[in-house]
Every structure is written in C-alpha cells, then in structure tokens.
C-alpha cells in the first residue's frame, strides 16, 4: 500500500511539470495548449540528441535541451500563436492541435518510429525497509521538487512572477501599470518550455523515448490541470498528485494497463460536477 502511494506520488510529480506548464500558459494566454504533449516529445528527443549522439552527460544534455526547447516554443508562439492572439481561445486551441501534429511528424521524420532510451547506467533499486525506490524515481522526485520550488519562488517572490500574475489577472490593467505583455508572454513560454523538456527527460528515463510519448501524457496532464483549476498554476501540482495516486491505487482493483480509465473517469466526473476545478473557486472573478 505504501509502495503504491510512493509510486503514485512519483507518477503525480512526473505529471505535475507539464500540468504546471499547461496552466501557466493558460492563465496568461487564455487558451489550452494542446501541443504540450508534442513539446514534451520534442524535449525528450532534443535531450536524446545531445546525450546519445553527442555523448554528453545526461544533466548537461538536459540543460541544453531544455533551453533548446524553450527557444523552439518561443519561436512557435511567434509563428503560430501570435498572429491569432486576438482570436478566441478555441481558435488557438485548434491552432495548437495543428502544431502538435506537425511537431510529432517532424520527430518521426528525423528520428523514426522505434523506441529509444537515454545513455544512463542501469542501477539496482534502493530499499528503505519494505519500500523500493529505483534511481529513476529518485531522480524524478528530486528534479521535480527542485523545479517546483524554483517556479514557486519565481511566481511569488520576483518581479517577473508579479508581472505574470498581473497579466493573468487583468491584462489591460497590467498594460497601464507599465507591464509589457510581450515580455511576460515570452517568459511564460520559456518557463513552460524548460518545465516540459525536463518532464520529457524524466518520462524518457521512466519509460522509453518514442514519438507517441507526449500523446500518452496528454489526457492525464489536462485532467491534472483542470482538477487544480486550470487558471491557477500551483494548484495544477495538487491535481497532478491526485491523478498519480488515484491511478496507482486503481491497480488494486483493476489490471494496470487500464490505468488510463482513471484519468478519463476523473476528467468526466470533474467536468460534470466541478468544471472550475478543486481549487478554482479561490479565483475571484468579480
């Protein structure tokens, strides 16, 4: 049971980075970026390129890959989303579906369809009492917690964080208060890109790198973000942990490969009962 909770927490943390990235971009740009899954895939492949083909150590490859993905994400915003910024959220959502399909096929074009994995040593799992924790899980735990703390600090304590929250709250007022929306949007994409690339590496460590990897995470990531209340980024983390633990606990009563059903069920129930999310009411809209 404890083992399941631990596994669930790790799965949840893995989801929390892209969920945080998704709700961060939603809160500032007011559209759900469907391409988040493809961003994750691209991030993993970029890091794979540096790690396996260039032979760099994984953490250097991951840092460079994260910056690379951030650049790519900003470029995509410039080319695909910026011209549509005055349109509705649905228009942008459809545009992001196009971006998702294009990116995934670009990856297939250059990297092929077969699964790959990072160049890391295989290690025996650690044991604490009866609990088993393998090195991938430990890496996920430490990396994600560090990233979350850093994002929290940026969000709550820095000038940039205040600017992001101000634009999310009231873009027109933010403009007359001297905040440049363009800079905030670019910063949000950079943070999203870095978080998603890190998630891509961690997913690649946990499983394989393959062109569909981001796709498989799309549903639980969206569910996690909506569960938290899609416009409140830090709540997305709580949503992700809930999904992760719920999926793991579900294996007590159903075969593991049906875990996906859990995310679907939570999503469906949520949209019927509490579409603004578990923590959504705290967002004052009047």
């Amino acid at each position, binding site marked *: 049971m404890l083992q399941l909770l631990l596994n669930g927490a790790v799965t949840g943390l893995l989801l929390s980075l892209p969920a945080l990235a998704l709700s961060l971009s939603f809160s500032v740009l007011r559209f759900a970026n469907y391409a988040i899954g493809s961003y994750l895939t691209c991030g993993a492949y970029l890091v794979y390129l540096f790690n396996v083909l260039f032979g760099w150590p994984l953490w250097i490859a991951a840092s460079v890959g994260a910056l690379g993905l951030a650049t790519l994400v900003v470029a995509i915003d410039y080319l695909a989303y910026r011209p549509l910024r005055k349109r509705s959220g649905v228009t942008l959502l459809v545009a992001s579906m196009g971006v998702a399909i294009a990116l995934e096929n670009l990856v297939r074009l250059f990297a092929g369809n077969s699964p790959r994995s990072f160049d890391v040593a295989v290690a025996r799992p650690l044991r604490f009492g009866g609990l088993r924790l393998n090195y991938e899980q430990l890496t996920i735990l430490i990396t994600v917690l560090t990233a979350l703390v850093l994002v929290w600090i940026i969000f709550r304590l820095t000038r940039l964080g*205040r600017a992001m929250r101000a634009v999310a709250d009231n873009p027109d007022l933010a403009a*007359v208060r*001297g905040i440049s929306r363009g800079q905030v949007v670019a910063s949000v994409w950079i943070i999203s890109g870095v978080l998603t690339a890190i998630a891509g590496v961690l997913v690649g460590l946990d499983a394989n790198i393959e062109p569909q990897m981001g796709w498989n995470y799309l549903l639980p990531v969206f569910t996690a973000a909506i569960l938290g209340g899609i416009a409140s980024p830090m709540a997305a983390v709580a949503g992700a942990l809930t999904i992760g633990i719920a999926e793991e606990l579900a294996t007590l009563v159903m075969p593991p490969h049906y875990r996906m059903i859990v995310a679907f069920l939570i999503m469906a129930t949520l949209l019927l009962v509490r579409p603004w999310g578990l923590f959504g009411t705290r967002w*004052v809209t009047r």
Partner: protein
Amino acid sequence: MSEDATGLVLRDVHAGYGGQPILHGVSMTLRKGERKVVIGPNGSGKSTLMKTAVGLLRPLSGQILLNGQDVTALRASERARRGLTYVPQEANVFRNMSVLENLRIGHEFIAPRGGLAFAGRLEEVLRLFPEIRPKLGTTAGHLSGGQRQMVAMAAALMPDPTVLALDEPSAGLSPRNAELLFEIIHRIADSGVTLLLIEQNTRLGLGAADNGVVLVAGQVRLAAPTADILANENIRRLYLGGA
C-alpha cells in the same frame, strides 16, 4: 502659453473601434497642475477619449503629446513610464493579489530607476489614503467597491506620475461613498498632480476640477472654467440634465 510646459495635449484626435470613429476631432490641453473634468451624456465618447489619451486605443488620426513629447505611437505601458497613469472605470485592481502587491506593481514597472524607493513612496501614498493601511494584506478582490477605487488610485499614484487619469471614479458607488471618494480626489489634486477626470456625476465632477470640457457626440461643445459651466443656465439644461 507654450505647449512645452503642458501635461497632456490632444490635437484633432479622431478615434473609434473597427474603423468607425466615435471621437470627431477632439482637441484639448491639460496644463501642469491643472484639474480638468470631461463631462457629457451617455455615449458621447468620454471613455473612448480616455482610452485614446492613455494609449489603450490607437487614434485613427490626430496627435497626443505628453510633457511636450509626441506619444501618439506609444502603447499604454510606455506612456505610463513617461508619467501618465490611469485608473480604469471597472476591473481596476488585480483582484487575486493583495493590496500591498497591487501597490508594488503600481510602482515597480513604471517608476524611474533611481527614483524614490518603494518604501518611501508607499509611506507618501498611504498618507493620502490612510483608509487602506489596515488592508494591505487583504486580497483586493475581497474589498468593497469604494476601497477598491482607493487601492486603484493609490496604485496609480505610486510611481509619482505627472498626469493621473481617472475614468468615472464614482461609477457603481453609493452616493455616500462617491462623496467620500471625491474628498480623497480633492486631497490628491491638492498634492499637485495634474488630473484628468471623466465623470458622469456632473455635480461631483465639476466640483473637483478647475476646468471642464463638455463632450457631446464625440465633439467638444464647450471648454470653460467649471464655475462658468455651472453658472450657465443653458448649458446646465442642455448637457447636464439640470444638475
């Protein structure tokens, strides 16, 4: 009078939405330290005038000068950095942030580097608004309408602007709260800031200003000292609903 010494000048401004003009050639001059109120019936273009002046709406033609410099092409955020701050009519605070954060945001993206630091400015502004001092930790969205207006004005005053533009500060307030708010507006005006005010409540608006502009159907019908406007029976009957 030389226009170099002025706060804000609009020259023959045509503006509107989707290419349809609402303002038809509006010109006005706001001298340094002047308090000017724009009044007029519903739909006369007051809010369009305000949005064009502060940079949220690009004029179709015409020119806008701030402290002698042409700012027509500048966005709202850039005009704010040059000393023109603005309090919108609605949604004028960051509702999910604390009052203190609202004031900090009012300061940090506009105030010139090397200017009076945040703490010093905060004290000066709180002296004008002692009412909000106990509320600094409160989420702005949980304040009453009158308190929100005060926070909004305080935030706009934080960077020590040369021109403060207020869009219908009394909107949505009870008559009593509107009176209280205008007492504060008097206090602000006495502190020396140049004030551009748009107000539907003509009695309160004219009472707070030196000069008035009557806007009707997107054109300036009259620009005169407020005392003259109030004394003119015809204007009162025609434009002010007998106020």
